[in-house]
């Protein structure tokens, strides 16, 4: 895993709340057994509408998704993150991001940015107006800057586990395996009736 300490990019604004993972990537994409190649599934149903923001040529290459409350609710599918990643999205900014999805984003180096709603609204205003507006996200300090929206070093919420994953870039499994002895000792006193399969 690579360290992610800063993200800078132009914005794709989707002014909708409760964007669920079925919209981010429809279920039929989950039939694949690969881990990449999901970019065409991203918002597949909405992209059939020529007016949808992802079809705006002026937004090509933008890497920061801006959305309404409760982004990523619904199914736990990590395919939603793979679709965002394969489309080259690096960060998602929203007033709130659903729990499971928020935990999934950093697994692929994407930054879940939970920002005060009033600031998100300001970002929407400038980003919808001008596709060139860009935003800088400092993961280390958990701050965001967007000069066009007159936002400078605004703090955002990023939970400690995600922060740790992003800024250290360590493989979480390797990290846990360092605690082999602690795990063994826990296992030696589990309740005797707990189910075992087979």
């Amino acid at each position: 895993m690579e360290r992610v300490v800063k993200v800078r990019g132009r914005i794709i604004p989707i002014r909708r709340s409760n964007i669920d993972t079925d919209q981010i990537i429809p279920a039929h994409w989950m039939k694949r057994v690969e881990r990449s190649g999901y970019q065409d599934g991203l918002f597949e149903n909405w992209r059939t509408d020529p007016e949808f923001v992802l079809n705006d040529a002026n937004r090509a290459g933008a890497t920061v998704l801006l959305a309404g409350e409760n982004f990523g609710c619904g199914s736990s599918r990590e395919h939603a993150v793979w679709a965002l990643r394969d489309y080259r999205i690096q960060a998602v900014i929203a007033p709130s991001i659903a729990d499971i999805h928020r935990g999934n984003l950093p697994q692929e180096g994407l930054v879940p940015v939970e920002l005060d709603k009033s600031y998100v609204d300001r970002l929407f205003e400038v980003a919808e107006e001008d596709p060139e507006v860009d935003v800088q996200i400092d993961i280390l300090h958990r701050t965001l800057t967007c000069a066009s929206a007159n936002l400078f070093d605004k703090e955002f919420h990023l939970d400690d586990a995600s922060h740790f994953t992003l800024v250290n870039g360590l493989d979480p499994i390797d990290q846990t395996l360092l605690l082999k002895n602690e795990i063994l000792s826990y296992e030696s006193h589990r309740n005797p009736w707990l189910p075992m399969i087979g």
Partner: protein
Amino acid sequence: MKKRRLNLIDKIWESHLIDSNASGDLLYIDMQLFNEVTSPQAFENIRAKGRQVRRPELCLATADHDVPTGPGHPVPIDDVAATQIAVQKEQCSRFGIELHSMFSRGNGITHVIGPEKGVTQPGMTIVCGDSHTATHGAFGAVAFGIGTSQVEHVLATQTLRLSRPKTMSVTLKGVPGKGASAKDLALAIIAKLGHGGGTGHLIEFRGDAVRNLSMEGRMTLCNMAIETGARSGLIAPDETTLAYLKGKECAPKGELWELASAFWGDLGSDDGVNFDSEVEIDVDGIRPMVTWGTNPSQSVPVGSLVPEPSSFSSARERDAAVTALRYMGLRPSTRTSEIPINVVFIGSCTNGRLEDLAAAAEIAKGRKVADGVRALVVPGSQDTKAAAEAMGLDEIFIRSGFEWRSPGCSMCVGMNGDVVPAGQHSVSTSNRNFEGRQGAGSRTHLASPETAAASAIAGRICSAAELSEIEKG
């Protein structure tokens, strides 16, 4: 020394804690469940990196999302589904994990077979790459959905690193009205808390209206806890829980049962203990509910009017209502009982258990599905199917014009070929009415098994009580 008073969630969390650091708590995971959709990439990484599955005996796999449910042993809908099913078989045998494969005796939806086999027990930590893992919370377990990277982490270490969620108690007050099922309670709770109102929390459901539910009903309720945005929901174990578990295949036996049941008896939240937030919800006299929109919080009592967007106080809800009504092709102030329907789906991990099927059959008995309505009954597991057939439920359904199918997720997610055609309205006992959830362009109305069956007969959204009224004339 006096023991610290803790709530149920904290008790389970702390008894599974191995390590804490800046990146969160490391929890031991007692059981991981697998479906064929969200785990292939995790197994593949384990293999590619030369790692081991730490505890294959704490893993249980089934195929459910892609499994065709038509008569006989049909082939999967397409090559991709067939590949996914084949890859799962190969991976489970490589790593020594028990798989209840397609059409096998023990097959079924993950969240139906775990409880049926007695694998789901109080006090456990249970995970699965599926958000409706919350279902298992009905037994007083901390059970939640995880992403594929986390599936891999649990495979390799039998642990997970997590930020500790906040705790919430949701206490139900009052006595639900006659004809209101656990599903109606769930929809009413989600309407109150809002789609997102539980975000960041683990919920303990409390109150007499919860205690009075059967295990099946509790599973329905916990299953839908996730639709509030919560990590999961759970209910403290009691006599109902123990009675359900006793004698199940994987439940403890003999002396171990005595030990376990004594332990479970003490597991509930201590008296007067605090939660990070506490909510009371009045469910007194609630009636059967149905959704009109595209998230599960957008519901009203069956027979009421589809709301005017302007009736919502927040801009967010108003916008969501406008978008939803456009997608659903509905006008505000339409009476829900006037919405004609094309498809009825009775099944899923929310309402595909024996009790659900029996309740629907009770309504279907001696009646006929309305012309032009396709009605499917899909049991949640092979065991459920066999039990239902032993009771003669299959015959009741078939005689009434319902299709009696084989187990699987089926029309809940529309991955196996069972889909609602674009633009058609379905009444579904599943858990999500998102845009396109039951197939591109599908328009889903969530409801209880009783309401779904009555709607199939009436050809429009209809409660069981209303159906009998009409027939009385």
